[in-house]
């Protein structure tokens, strides 16, 4: 029989947010080593997929992938494969090639040699044999900010799961989280308009949860500002949805689906079903909509 379980929770600043990793197991030093390795996986995703770092896979693609195919790390390639599939399945609503628009809106930094680009592209990223990637149009720039955080959570959780002598684990990257093990985690869902209030709690067990909302900056004020999510036609979504939480088996898929649900609202039901995901939509009028297969795990504030 195992001794008393050692449960350790640590946090590091990564991916532009605080990444929390918790693990439990019979041997404290083993738990700490597994958490270190899991943080290392998150740091690797950060290095590969940062829009800001000049030597990341994403930056190399943005500089060169129209002129010639560029080889990327298999993790980057995996995220691009999922992104292309989601792009097609959502008829272009999920789009990693919106970086120039986000730059125009000052949501991403502009580099000196970047031409201002306005047009929106469809299917701009071509995936080739041997982890090679090519852009079909000039001036295409990708940003994996809508999916890479979820992928990092999945990778970190895989490290914990594969470490041996770890009974349970949780990785939370600023609200995108995933858990494994016998424990059931309760997660508070903030009200996107009033972050000091919670809408309710969600039970999470051996699955992933991702949330997105209109932006608010806790350092400056509790008030929401515009959304960092750009719908078709370059505009922030105007469907009256303030925030979205999605449950799926993989955090990468949950992360990406929050962006689609934020734009498509209730119309995202079919796509959610195809990815075996569920969602909770928080409407601006205070109403909450929940996928029917997920009610059992959601406790609303009463």
């Amino acid at each position: 029989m195992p001794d008393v379980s050692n449960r350790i929770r640590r946090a590091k600043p990564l991916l532009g947010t605080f990444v929390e990793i918790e693990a439990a197991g019979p041997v404290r030093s083993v738990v700490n080593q597994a958490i270190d390795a899991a943080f290392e996986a998150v740091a690797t995703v950060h290095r590969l997929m940062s829009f800001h770092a000049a030597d990341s896979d994403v930056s190399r693609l943005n500089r060169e992938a129209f002129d010639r195919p560029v080889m990327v790390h298999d993790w980057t390639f995996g995220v691009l494969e999922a992104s292309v599939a989601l792009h097609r399945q959502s008829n272009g609503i999920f789009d990693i090639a919106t970086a120039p628009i986000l730059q125009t809106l000052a949501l991403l930094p502009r580099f000196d040699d970047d031409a201002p680009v306005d047009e929106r592209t469809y299917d701009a990223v071509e995936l080739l044999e041997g982890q090679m990637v090519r852009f079909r149009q000039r001036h295409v720039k990708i940003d994996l900010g809508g999916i890479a955080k979820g992928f990092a959570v999945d990778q970190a959780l895989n490290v914990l799961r594969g470490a041996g002598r770890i009974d349970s684990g949780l990785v939370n990257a600023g609200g995108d989280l995933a858990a494994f093990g016998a424990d059931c985690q309760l997660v508070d869902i903030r009200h996107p308009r009033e972050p000091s209030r919670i809408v309710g709690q969600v039970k999470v067990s051996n699955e992933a949860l991702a949330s997105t909302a209109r932006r608010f900056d806790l350092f400056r004020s509790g008030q929401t500002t515009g959304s960092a999510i750009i719908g078709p036609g370059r505009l922030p979504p105007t469907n009256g949805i303030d925030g979205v939480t999605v449950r799926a088996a993989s955090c990468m898929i949950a992360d990406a689906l929050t962006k689609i649900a934020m734009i498509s609202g209730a119309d995202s039901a079919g796509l959610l079903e195809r990815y075996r995901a569920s969602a909770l939509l928080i409407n601006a009028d205070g109403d909450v909509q929940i996928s029917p297969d997920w009610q059992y795990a959601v406790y609303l504030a009463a």
Partner: protein
Amino acid sequence: MTEWIRYTLPAAAIAAATSPAYAMQYLSIEEAQKQAFPSASHFTELQAGRVWKAEAGGRAVGFFIFDRVVGKHLYIDYAVALTPAGAVHSVEILQYRESYGGEVRSPGWLGQFAGKTSASPLKVNSDIRNIAGATLSSLHVTEGVKKVLATYAGRLK
């Protein structure tokens, strides 16, 4: 097509929800020191409660600096481990508190975390809350680490 289940949250019910002020104790200073420098046999305090030299076999293997960033709503204790040459070896968040307005001073809120030390392992599932729905910027910590580097790197021996 799937039908969504719709709920209306009365404004009063939302207002009555538990005050979600959060605090999280991660590693203690001692635990973070061991984690950053597993080979160190001794930590010499160079500046009270703030700077330590990690030593192994009489040689410095690095430095450990405790710092705190204070924002409007966030109070974050963190530690930067430096190599003997003064480069960042690791950054670890030690404690995180978030509050809105006066909630941080409410005894009920503080009581939720009283007695939680490294010696009494947290029962995370019941005591400590997971947060979703907001991406907190880690910018202040990143700026703090730069400040720590500017203050200490190259000056510690």
